[in-house]
């Protein structure tokens, strides 16, 4: 009886909105990743790898790679793209982000430096003016034979599809955690931070297969994995 009362009280508490929301933990989901499973063959090998993680700083990913003797570089390209100083106008007077300035401040690595780049869902959420320049730079910092993993939404995804950070749990299992922006990332004199919405990032576009192939046309090969959650996983080899 006590437990019934306890559960009833729990139900009552959970239906009281307002203040409870703030203290609620951020929602986390778990998903299997075929692309990651394919990549895992690399990090189970003997030789130490150089891995670039372009998602939000993930303690799990850092632990995952360093425990296996690999070097990991972490760089959150989405948060960097919200820098107000990047906002400029193109020849037609459209507001865009300055890709030259962006690449001068980010992704500054020697050529042919990385074995693996974990792009996660970056291309879907990155501002249009930055996508191709960033992919070009990633091509140049990957070693020949190096691999890049990216996730793309399918056409069923809406503009408010939440942007996640990805934590590697096992070699083919990811934990997805909804990104909530830091307050300072949304601040700026112009207020024109395209990719940011109230508490996260906005899906900028949906790539079809042909767009994806064009995006990675400089790479040697491309492999698609269709997942159940309106996401295509793409593994490209330089």
């Amino acid at each position: 009886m006590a437990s019934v009362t306890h559960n009833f009280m729990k139900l009552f508490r959970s239906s009281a909105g307002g203040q409870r929301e703030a203290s609620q933990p951020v929602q986390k989901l778990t998903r299997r990743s075929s692309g990651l499973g394919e990549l895992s063959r690399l990090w189970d090998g003997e030789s130490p790898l150089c891995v670039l993680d372009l998602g939000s700083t993930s303690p799990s990913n850092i632990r995952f790679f360093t425990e296996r003797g690999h070097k990991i570089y972490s760089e959150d390209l989405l948060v960097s793209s919200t820098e107000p100083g990047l906002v400029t106008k193109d020849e037609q007077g459209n507001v865009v982000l300055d890709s030259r300035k962006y690449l001068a401040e980010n992704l500054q690595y020697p050529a042919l430096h990385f074995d693996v780049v974990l792009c996660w869902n970056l291309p879907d959420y990155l501002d249009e003016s930055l996508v191709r320049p960033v992919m070009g730079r990633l091509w140049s910092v990957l070693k020949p034979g190096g691999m890049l993993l990216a996730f793309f939404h399918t056409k069923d995804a809406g503009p408010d599809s939440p942007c996640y950070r990805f934590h590697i749990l096992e070699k083919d299992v990811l934990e997805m955690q909804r990104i909530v922006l830091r307050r300072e990332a949304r601040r700026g004199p112009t207020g024109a931070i395209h990719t940011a919405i109230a508490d996260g990032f906005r899906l900028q576009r949906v790539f079809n297969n042909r767009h994806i192939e064009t995006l990675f046309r400089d790479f040697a090969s491309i492999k698609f994995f269709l997942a159940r959650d309106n996401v295509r996983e793409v593994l490209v080899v330089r």
Partner: protein
Amino acid sequence: MSAPFSADLAQIGKSVVIKGELSGSEDLYVDGQVEGSIALKGNSLTVGPHGQIKASVEAKGVIVQGKLEGNVLATDRVDLRKTAIVTGDISTQRIAIEEGAYLKGKVDIQGRAEKAAGK
């Protein structure tokens, strides 16, 4: 958040700005601004929530709650708390990163044997 009390803890308060080389043989808590280099070989550095460091750091342990720009070499461990914003490479034996911490740079975990061999 205030610095943990300790007789062997030097403190640099919020309004203090230091430019140059900082070295010592006691633990250091920085809640102000430091630009240059910090060397505390057998001791620990704590960057408080208001701390802003633009320096290369060498210490036994490093705890970051504020901003740190520069490479970190810690012989024991590095702790990045949830408010930490770190830009630079980290080389250490152990690292703990809280959810929410921001890191732009390389993490290199060095074993004791590697350190001794100077790799």
